[in-house]
């Protein structure tokens, strides 16, 4: 995945910021990886190599408490999606798409799907995931059709 952050231009339309994630000891690595390195990282068990998301302190497979963030490739497919119309809270605008993306490493992550018209969205379509800066504090993964115009 790209280490260069794409700037999403702030529109004059809305100064509102996206909801902040509630950060604690269990999930901070995910947002720090995005913010500091532009990387999508998933919790990885040091003992059994299991990937797990959303993060949880103990490995469900082997009960190990030892884990580290693992950087994902940025490739995945669309598992499901929803197109939002009501209620719309700024800075979101009607018709935005939220997706569950299945990464090629096997875990699923919720993120926005952009760069594709509603009628062209297909479950199973290949996606490219990159870190994108939403505002001064927040970097999130964003999915776009693989191989399409970025």
């Amino acid at each position: 995945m790209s280490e260069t952050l794409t700037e999403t231009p702030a529109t004059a339309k809305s100064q509102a910021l996206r909801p902040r994630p509630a950060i604690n000891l269990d999930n901070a690595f995910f947002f720090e990886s995005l913010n500091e390195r532009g990387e999508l990282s998933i919790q990885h068990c040091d003992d059994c190599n299991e990937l797990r998301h959303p993060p949880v302190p103990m490995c469900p497979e082997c009960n190990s408490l030892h884990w580290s963030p693992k950087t994902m490739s940025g490739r995945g497919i669309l598992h499901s999606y929803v197109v939002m119309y009501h209620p719309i809270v700024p800075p979101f605008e009607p018709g935005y798409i939220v997706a569950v993306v299945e990464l090629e490493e096997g875990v699923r992550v919720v993120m926005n799907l952009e760069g594709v018209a509603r009628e062209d969205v297909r479950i199973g379509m290949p996606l490219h995931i990159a870190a994108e800066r939403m505002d001064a504090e927040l970097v999130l993964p964003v999915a776009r059709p693989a191989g399409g115009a970025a």
Partner: protein
Amino acid sequence: MSNLLNKAVIVGIGATEFSKNSGRSELQLAQEAALAACRDAGVNPQDVDGMVTYSMDTNPAIEVARGLGCKELNFFSHVDYGGGAAAGTILHAAMAVATGVAKTVVCYRAFNERSGARFGQAMSTAGMAPDARAAAYAWTLPFGLMTPASWVGMFAQRYMHLTGATSEDFGRVAVADRKHAATNPKAWFYEKPITLEDHQNSRWIADPLHLLDCCQESDGGQAFVITTPERAKDLPGKAVTIRAAAQGAAYDQHTMVSYYRKDGDRPLPEMGNVARQLWNDTGLRPEDIDTAVLYDHFTPFVLAQLEEFGFCGRGEAKDFIKNGAIELGGRLPINTNGGQLGEAYIHGMNGIAEGVRQLRGTAVNQVENARNVLVTAGTGVPTSALILGND
């Protein structure tokens, strides 16, 4: 297998009116509903010795008990996971009376969910301490996945992809509910049935969900009195047997957003867990159920529930519900009060009351000779359900 079989009864039901603006406090609604349930049962409210409600209810048991004048409480329980806990309250009360921990338990739920804090609005964790509950929302809110409709829409889209179900199939649930509400004077949508065309033409909320796939936001309170069959014999209220009740969570369970399970393609394994317990405990089969109240905050999960309970095979609910099968007179009439789409959204509790009325023979849309009624609680969350019966 539990040994709770037929060891507790619902002997009283009581509710406030269901509205969009009750004009009184949630605590007053809770006390009104609880008192009405006591009067229906013929129980002196001062003798109530147990209280059960569930998370998201703002009314402390001791405040409800103060109003009722309860002399002492020996049991109080606050069941987790919102609407998923509705039948769980009856389970906890049944366990308490069956074990002798308490004698007479009131289960209640009351809120101003339309005129006060509305559940359909965007969720926010702003100002909350970043504990595990708040942190779980970090995986949805920043991406604009902020409402119950959006959380369910994500499941629904996948379900359609896997089963071939369409928006019209979801619409058939709404049409059935509204048909039943149309003849229920207590329903918000009394005398207001809809057609499948109305459903299809209603605006998008969270595509694939239309407005008419979504339950109402309502004000109101609903309560029950639970006791033992022996004690109920001395009470004037017509007792209905709690044949079995169960709670259930499943593997890799989340609240409304269990999108991460490795099999990925089964929307409600937690309800499957509950179903297995109820069938095992009672020895009943789907064909023994005369009518059901299936939790319908959003229509798609009604289809998934029919499959988890084995009324039809996986992915076959779209065929099962065709030709009026879930309407009065059909193979399995559901939500005969109008459900939460048609009567009111009282977080699943008004559905339990409808189950009691069906077995008492006092429902407005009565199913003839109903002997076994299934009632389920909130879907997408850790959940619960029960089977009520006549002995």
